[in-house]
């Protein structure tokens, strides 16, 4: 966990107009759990360094790691990673980090994932890990501004058939023919806590306002606060 490792960009894929998947090769990567993150360090020619945290968007697989990066307007690091870092060039990474906002596929309790915008990234690692290694009930509620903001659209469509129930919530603009009018996540968008005996484990990730709102809905719906794990950004 302690040292910085060189990470070579091997692939960059477009998720949305501002969202990118970055795939790095990290020699001797020790592996990680779904939900963990890494610190990414950039170095300028004059020695200046900048470090930011990014969620690991895929489960551990050899020396490859995948990050989800949303280019923030005026940002110091994210626009560079999303647009400028050449494929084949290197950054440094430290990790995996975080031992709380994690899901292990051997856990059998039902799982409720609630994502706001690019908060989908660490939850996507859980969806993918679940697809390959678990039969526990998993439900994803994914809030986006409009249909063009959905990350991993095709894969989430396929996940639907592979055991994760996916519910998209559009806050500003719903797709044509949608029966749900646009609006922020409400109590009716969330599945109720499972029957006694199988306590749902909830993971909520997104901007602060979203997480405050969504975690509040979960508590009000009867989920135990100790079973709701949150990660916020912005």
């Amino acid at each position, binding site marked *: 966990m*302690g040292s910085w490792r060189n990470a070579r960009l091997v692939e960059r894929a477009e998720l949305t107009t501002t969202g990118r998947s970055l795939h790095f090769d990290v020699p001797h990567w020790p592996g990680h759990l779904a939900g963990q993150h890494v610190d990414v360090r950039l170095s*300028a020619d004059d020695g200046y360094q900048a470090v930011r945290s990014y969620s690991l968007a895929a489960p551990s697989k050899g020396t490859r790691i995948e990050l989800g990066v949303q280019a923030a307007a005026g940002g110091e690091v994210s626009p560079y990673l999303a647009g400028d870092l050449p494929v084949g060039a290197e950054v440094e990474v430290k990790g995996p980090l975080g031992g*709380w906002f994690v899901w292990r596929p051997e856990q059998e309790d039902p799982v409720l994932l609630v994502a706001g915008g690019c908060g989908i990234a660490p939850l996507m690692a859980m969806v993918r890990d679940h697809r390959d290694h678990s039969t526990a009930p998993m439900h994803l509620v994914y809030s986006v501004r409009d249909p063009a903001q959905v990350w991993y659209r095709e894969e989430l469509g396929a996940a639907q058939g592979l055991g994760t129930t996916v519910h998209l919530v559009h806050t500003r603009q719903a797709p044509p023919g949608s029966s749900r009018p646009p609006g922020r996540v409400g109590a009716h968008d969330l599945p109720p806590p499972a029957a006694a005996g199988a306590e749902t484990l909830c993971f909520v990730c997104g901007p602060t306002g979203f997480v405050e709102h969504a975690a509040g809905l979960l508590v009000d719906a009867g989920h135990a606060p100790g079973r709701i794990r949150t990660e916020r950004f912005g």
Partner: protein
Amino acid sequence: MDNFSPGFHGRTNRFEGRLPPGQYPTESFPVLSAGPTPKVLTETWDFGITTETGQRHYWDWDRMMALPQEDLTVDIHCVTRWSKFDTSWRGVSLDAFLEDVETSADFALVHSEGGYTTNLPLEDLTDGKAWLVHTFDGYDLSPEHGGPVRLLVPQHYLWKSAKWVKGISLTPQNEPGFWESVGYHDYGDPWREQRTWSD
């Protein structure tokens, strides 16, 4: 290194000498919590200090507000790398709470509503180094920032400044708290970049 983050240009550092290594300044006030925000009412809030002999000292809201109030302006540093300068708070020094507490304990385990804990050497809570604060920037401390009352220990990374604080146990032995048990550094000094177990 030609192949190393080529074309990355840093920003000018306007806070030389006040920005610990690896931090960046922010004007906003990000929120980080492990779970949902607890709803704590001042009417039912209380704060307890328990010594190593089991002796308990309690303050409710009115007793806390009757203690000497201090205004302070400090820089705060979050382990997730943001730093915020000149934040202004109002609250009560831990020295005021500890004045009549007899203890020879060396460590403190801080308890929060919702089960969160964090540990500190007791000497880092005394001599004007720590406060219970209830006001930020002239307004009641908001729930997502730990309101109605949080601990503030600005010399450490901010996870030590427990939100929704409800008690402190004084102990002869050091006991790791919530984040300290899952990978964060036991002490958490921003100037020495003590972020994780391996730092």
